[in-house]
C-alpha cells in the first residue's frame, strides 16, 4: 500500500478534530480567515529548550492562494538545524518522530501544526529558550517566498 503523504494526514487530522467538537464546527472553520493571497502564519509558539538542546515550533499555516504551495527551507538564527517533523504512533503504544517529506500546503486551505502531530524541529540550539523569550523563524515557500515569523516561547499553547 502506498503510504499517505504526511501532510494529508495532518489535514485529515485537523478536519477530524474540528468535527469532534460538533457544536463549534462552524466556529472552528471560521476561526481561520484565509488571506486573499499568499501564506499567513497564525498562533505560532515554541517549546522551551536548553542550550545545545532541541525545541519545537507549532503554528497554523493559512494558504490564501488558489495554488498549493510547498516548503523549500526553514531557518532560524538560534538553531543549527531546522526541519519539519511529525510525531507518529508506533506499534505497542510507542511514540516516534520523523522528518516529514515533501510537505504540501493546499490552495485555500489550512495546515495545522500541533503538539503530537507536525512540528518545526529546532536542533542544536545556540541559546536556551525560556518561557517568555521570542525567537524568529524564516519559512521559504516555493510560491509565497520568504516569510519571517516571530515565535513566543511558551510552556503550552495559549488556546487551551
Amino acid at each position, binding site marked *: 500500500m502506498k503510504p499517505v503523504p504526511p501532510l494529508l494526514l495532518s489535514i485529515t487530522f485537523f478536519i*477530524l478534530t474540528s468535527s469532534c467538537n460538533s457544536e463549534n464546527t462552524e466556529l472552528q472553520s471560521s476561526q481561520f480567515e484565509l488571506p486573499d493571497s499568499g501564506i499567513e502564519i497564525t498562533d505560532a509558539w515554541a517549546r*522551551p529548550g536548553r542550550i545545545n538542546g532541541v525545541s519545537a515550533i507549532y503554528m497554523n499555516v493559512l494558504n490564501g492562494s488558489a495554488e498549493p504551495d510547498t516548503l523549500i527551507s526553514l531557518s532560524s538564527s538560534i538553531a543549527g*538545524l531546522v526541519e519539519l517533523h511529525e510525531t507518529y504512533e508506533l506499534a505497542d503504544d510507542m511514540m*516516534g*518522530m520523523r522528518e516529514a517529506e515533501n510537505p504540501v500546503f493546499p490552495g485555500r486551505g489550512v495546515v495545522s501544526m500541533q503538539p503530537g502531530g507536525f512540528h518545526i*524541529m529546532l536542533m542544536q540550539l545556540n541559546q*536556551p529558550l525560556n*518561557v517568555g523569550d521570542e525567537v524568529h523563524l524564516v519559512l521559504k515557500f516555493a510560491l509565497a517566498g520568504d516569510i519571517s515569523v516571530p515565535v513566543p516561547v511558551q510552556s503550552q499553547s495559549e488556546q487551551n
Partner: protein
Amino acid sequence: MRLYIRNLILVIFTIGFAISCSSPALDDYSDVQYHLMDQNGESVIFPDDYEGAPVVMGFIYTNCPDICSFITANVSKVYNEMENPGETQFVLVTFDPDRDTSEVLKNYANAFDMDKDPFQFLTGDPDVIDQLMTRVGVRTQESYSREIEDGERMYFLNHSDKILLIDSRSRLIFDYGGSMTPPNIIIEDLEKL
C-alpha cells in the same frame, strides 16, 4: 485522534476499574530500591525517599521537543491546577541517561521554569535507569540519527508515552498516556487517594 480515543477508552476503563474496587494497585514498588540522581546532582532513592506522599511521575528524554515537552508541561500543569497540592511530588525521569546528565536536566528544568520545588528531574547510572524503565513498563528504541558538527551523532528515540500516579505507600495506582491525558483527570485521581 486514534490516540485520543484510545486514551479516552483507557481513562474510562481505569475510572470504571477504580469505582469497582476502591484501591486497585497495579504494582507495588516497595520491594525495590533505585539509586538515582536529581538535577542538582543529589543522590535519591526511589521509592524510599518518596514514601509518605503521592508521586506524579513522567518519563522523558530532553532531545524530544514534542511528546516529551508535552509530558513535562502536563506534569507542571497538574501541579499548577491543583487547588491543594499538599506534599504531592512531581518527578520526571529520563530514559536517556547517557546524554541527560544532572546538568542537562537542570538546564531543561530551568527552561520550563521547573527547576524548583515540588519538581524533580532524575537521571542515573544507565543500568539502574534500565531496570527502572523495565519495571515501570517504559520501552525505548533508537530511531534515526543525524550527523552533526565535529563528527558527533545526534540520535532520537522511539519511546512509551507515560505518566504514573504512585500513592504514598509506593503503590502504582494509575498509568496514563503521558502526553494525551488531560491534567484534570490526573488531579481527580490524586484527590481520590
